[in-house]
């Protein structure tokens, strides 16, 4: 693209934004020209979402300025941004499923007369649809549309509302491969008509396929800027994940070299699951967790981690394949039976999945312990407190007050309570999703320590994490999830962060293609 002579449509300079202790954006500069696709690349938590929300007026920056066509503007709300021709498609679509495509779009148009002719809107939808390759039936109910078609509606909404700058937050996350191809074709037409597209993603292959310019962010800062010619996958991976960080076995304690004993604690054989909405279907997974083994799972978010955890616990049924627990077919076990067999579960979002916010910490501690503390029709609170007290001290966690409601705890404290509860009864298998997320360094260390102790005591651990360093330190074996399937498997110490990064972002196929 030949843009540098012209003024950028939208430009941000020196944007900084702090959330508590986290500097989400640190002096970020970014410019968007007409007729280009600009990819904003980075890992989870790199600051992409914050930056895009600032550009859409959703969040106000602490410092820095936003220029539209070279003139500074003040964005107080998304309404301001829209009036200036900036549109955004969020990861979670803002469509109303019960209304038709036409109604959803009409709702968004501010220039519509009070009594509008639906045929006139239909005409505009069809016209734009054909011009940009976004053909959707205006009369269809949104609930009947595929995710790809819903995305078309979101883009149409912006185009009909006269947006010139389109910000798309991980638009390919929920799309099937052929839908991604179709989306990139739409990008081409939009470019040709002078629109500017900011494409936020962490999938390298897609960036290389369609971006004219690339900005890579890491830990809130711009790590590098490239044009499409310079962009090769290796450079991008290094920029995203940083140098080194390879998986040297730094762990202390015993590293069990012996193959997992006779029977694996847990096994998935050819397991698949169905998915609805924005979930990721799992495809033919073979996972085996041996006794005395920590199996790590790496992947960018939305690759099927949550679904994998749910599948093991029984929250989600298998569509094909089978599930084995200590040699017994557990495919149709209830959640209660799996839990009582000694499975501890630390879910992705403890406040939603593992806690009842309005009930006290004490009551929450007894939930999920099955009938262990039943005493006739009542509960043996004493025994519960003793057992939980031990669990807290084994983890070196401070014991929280037991009377306040669970919802009043901070994120880190809540995470600690859930972990202490799950670890209290010598689990045979621990399934932990991001167990150290939101914890301070010391708590994170003791969680890792405890997971190792479970392993050393002959238990099995499935550790799902985004933190490659954590996985390098902990995992005896590493699985990489991509798009609901296992993209790679490594033994401890033989993998490099870069190599895993390729698999996590799906760029390996591109290299071989």
């Amino acid at each position, binding site marked *: 693209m030949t843009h540098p002579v012209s003024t950028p449509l939208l430009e941000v300079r020196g944007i900084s934004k702090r959330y508590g202790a986290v500097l989400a954006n640190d002096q970020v500069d970014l410019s968007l020209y007409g007729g280009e696709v600009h990819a904003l690349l980075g890992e989870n938590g790199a600051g992409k979402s914050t930056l895009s929300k600032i550009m859409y007026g959703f969040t106000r920056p602490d410092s820095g300025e936003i220029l539209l066509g070279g003139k500074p503007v003040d964005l107080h709300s998304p309404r301001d941004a829209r009036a200036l021709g900036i549109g955004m498609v969020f990861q979670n679509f*803002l469509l109303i*499923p*019960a*209304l038709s495509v036409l109604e959803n779009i009409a*709702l968004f148009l501010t220039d519509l007369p009070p009594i509008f002719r639906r045929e006139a809107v239909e005409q505009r939808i069809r016209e734009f649809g054909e011009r940009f390759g976004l053909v959707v039936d205006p009369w269809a109910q949104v609930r009947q549309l595929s995710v790809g078609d819903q995305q078309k509606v979101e883009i149409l909404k912006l185009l009909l509302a006269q947006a010139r700058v389109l910000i798309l937050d991980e638009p390919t996350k929920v799309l099937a491969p052929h839908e991604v191809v179709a989306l990139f074709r739409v990008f081409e037409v939009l470019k040709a008509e002078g629109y500017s597209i900011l494409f936020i993603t962490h999938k390298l292959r897609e960036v290389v396929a369609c971006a004219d310019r690339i900005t890579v962010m890491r830990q809130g800062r711009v790590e590098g800027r490239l044009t499409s010619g310079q962009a090769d996958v290796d450079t991008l991976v290094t920029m995203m994940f940083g140098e080194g960080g390879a998986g040297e076995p730094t762990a202390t304690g015993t590293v069990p070299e012996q193959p997992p004993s006779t029977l694996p604690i847990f096994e998935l054989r050819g397991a698949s699951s169905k998915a609805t909405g924005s979930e990721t279907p799992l495809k033919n997974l073979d996972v085996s967790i041996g006794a005395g083994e920590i199996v790590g799972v790496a992947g960018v978010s939305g690759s099927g981690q949550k679904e994998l955890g749910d599948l093991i616990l029984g929250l989600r049924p298998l569509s094909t394949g089978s599930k084995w627990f200590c040699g017994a077919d557990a495919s149709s076990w209830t959640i209660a039976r799996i839990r009582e067999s000694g499975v501890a579960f630390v879910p992705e979002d403890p406040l939603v999945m593992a806690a009842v916010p309005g009930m006290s910490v004490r009551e929450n501690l007894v939930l999920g312990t099955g009938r262990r503390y039943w005493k006739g029709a009542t509960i043996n609170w004493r025994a519960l407190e003793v057992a939980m007290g031990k669990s807290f001290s084994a983890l070196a966690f401070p014991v929280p007050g037991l009377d306040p409601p669970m919802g009043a705890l901070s994120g880190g404290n809540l995470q600690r309570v859930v972990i202490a509860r799950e670890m209290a009864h010598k689990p045979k298998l621990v399934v932990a999703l991001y167990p150290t997320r939101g914890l301070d360094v010391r708590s994170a260390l003791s969680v890792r320590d405890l997971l190792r102790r479970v392993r050393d005591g002959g238990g099995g651990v499935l550790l799902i994490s985004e933190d490659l360093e954590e996985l390098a330190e902990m995992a005896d074996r590493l699985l990489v999830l991509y798009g609901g399937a296992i993209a790679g498997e490594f033994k401890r110490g033989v993998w490099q962060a870069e190599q895993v990064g390729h698999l996590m972002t799906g760029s390996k196929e591109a290299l071989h293609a």
Partner: protein
Amino acid sequence: MTTPLVLGVLAGAVLSGTSLLYATLGETIVERSGIVNLGLEGILLIGASVGFSVAAASGSAWLGLAAAAAAGGLGNLLFGWLVVTRKANQLASGLAMMFFGFGVSALVGAPYVGAVIVGLPKWRPSWLDGLPWVRSTTLFNYDLLTWLAVPVAILVWWALFRTRWGLGVRAVGESPAAAFAAGRNPAVLQYQALSSGGVLGGLAGAHLSLSLTLTWAEYMTAGRGFIAIALVIFSKWHPLRAIAGALLFGGAEALQLQLQARGSDISPFLLEMAPYLLTILVLLAWGGSRRLAAPASLGRTFYGSD
């Protein structure tokens, strides 16, 4: 069944169906904006009592009608202040509004119990007089509210499904957050839906006292407000289907009255239950079906975008 019975039931169905239809239309608008108003019964009572009192005091049924409409609108605005502005629980607020309506209507109507009023004028187009079996009944001899009932239903349908305002109301009922993100103000739209629904509820009540019975008696609505709430479900939140529902329920009531008048052997208590039994049957038949088309955000409080 004899012809007079059929004609009597038909005529009665239209007469008692009128107030049911207005009430159902009002509640449909309100529920389409995501609010359940269980206080509808109270709004009907206020409409009936205010309409009757003003008509008795002023001598003009039209003035009574206007006052009833205004009172109904105000009643729903009060409800809106509770559930939209103060974000109170909708079900509890609705029940409170119902009992409030009981009390207010009794207070307003008390001086006029037993008063004699001239009701809303009724007429039958002269060309219908030619039909032999029509002249002996009340069929087609209607007041303005009854004549306008179906056109009003069509108007409500048009407003909800063909105007920008209606689109906003329905969007708020489905997803206030999405409507908000699209630049609409959910609270304003809900107040608008509530006040227009309240006007229709007031008219529904006034029709009972100013046309159907020409009296005021405490709790004369006898559950019509709740039947109307069931009718909203029966008609799947659609104004045009509400016409059929109102006729069906009006017919059930007319049938039991006709049977009672003809000295049927069936217990009068059982007969009087007919509309309520029908309500239970409708809820049973419709219950549990996922494609019910209820507004997705019905009964939920919108606390803002974050």
